[in-house]
């Protein structure tokens, strides 16, 4: 096989070697583009159907005489990458998760709805339908996941605590206002005791004092 060398003046006669396509048309008015287009078209048409093997500049002569060639062909990068990613996501994602889901639904199955029996308080994981979420909630019950009732009681406590604080503030402001209006008290100020703001702190101090008293 031969490679066409791009020359300034294209030849319009048929090539001596048979495996080449030759263009020899004359296009009026396009003379400045004639050479590159003809050469480009010739290059394209000569290479369109087969990949050419090119002898490398320093061919490696293996034992036996066949040299290594570099094959010129369109890139296989995208196709190979598509296969790679499909393989990855299907074998590591789709198949294991599908197997897990079929196992859960076939062996355990979704829970059935029933009325709460008398004098029975269900666990938090018994309010759920999906077996996977039931297992998770039962395992992480008080460690990572708190129940609805616990959350509710915590918010009720914060509401109560903030209400108590605000009431104390209002009483303090009222006392100050009345002192200012009536002017019937000695002028040493009332120093509020904030240690009762935290119930936990007061309870711990109380227990500490009781322990000291008992040890005496």
């Amino acid at each position, binding site marked *: 096989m031969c490679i066409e060398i791009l020359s300034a003046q294209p030849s319009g006669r048929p090539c001596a070697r048979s495996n080449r396509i030759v263009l020899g048309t004359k296009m009026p008015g396009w003379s400045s583009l004639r050479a590159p287009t003809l050469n480009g078209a010739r290059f394209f048409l000569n290479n369109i159907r087969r990949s050419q093997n090119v002898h490398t500049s320093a061919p490696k002569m293996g034992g036996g005489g066949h040299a290594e060639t570099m094959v010129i062909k369109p890139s296989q990068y995208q196709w190979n990458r598509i296969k790679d990613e499909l393989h990855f996501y299907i074998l590591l994602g789709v198949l294991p998760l599908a197997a897990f889901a079929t196992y859960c639904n076939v062996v*355990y199955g979704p829970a059935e709805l029933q009325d709460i029996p008398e004098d029975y308080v269900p666990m938090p994981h018994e309010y759920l339908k999906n077996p996977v979420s039931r297992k998770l909630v039962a395992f992480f019950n008080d460690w990572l996941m708190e129940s609805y009732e616990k959350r509710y009681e915590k918010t009720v406590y914060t*509401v109560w605590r903030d209400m108590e604080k605000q009431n104390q503030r209002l009483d303090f402001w009222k006392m100050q206002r009345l002192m200012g209006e009536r002017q019937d008290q000695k002028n040493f100020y009332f120093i509020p005791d904030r240690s009762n703001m935290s119930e936990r702190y007061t309870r711990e101090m109380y227990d500490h004092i009781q322990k000291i008293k008992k040890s005496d």
Partner: protein
Amino acid sequence: MAADDDRPDQINTNLLPSAQFNKLERVANTFRETFVLPFRQTPRPVYYHRKFARVPTIDQCDISDEVCKYEATEQHERDKKVDMFKIKILRKRLTHCNWYWGANKYEKCQTEREQYQDSAVNYHLRYGELGRTSELYEYYMKQKHRMIWLRRRQEAGDATAAYTD
């Protein structure tokens, strides 16, 4: 009306979409009975619906009792959701009846239509035209204004303006 107006057309029942779905249902049920149900564990898991105790409503709370107000708002949200689902069920019944009867829907679906429209009107009286508020006093005041409006209409001579729950 003919005697068989209450039953669907006997000739072309196989063309109904429900008939086609029944075939798929049969295939799926056989698959389930052969490959899924024999492998199920016998003590089946059971789940319950949460039961909420009734707490005092907003009209029974002190003006400065924040805890009572918080619990009343939670209860009110739950009640509103329950009312929404009730209306959804009634609307589904009406649409199913309309679909089933087709051209005869104005004659055959009177009960469903009355139920849905009455419940929709009551829902609107209670919860509507207030926007997305989470303040319970808005709903409470709406009830108060409605009672006042009805009383004034009654005093003006309109006998049908009576407050009903």
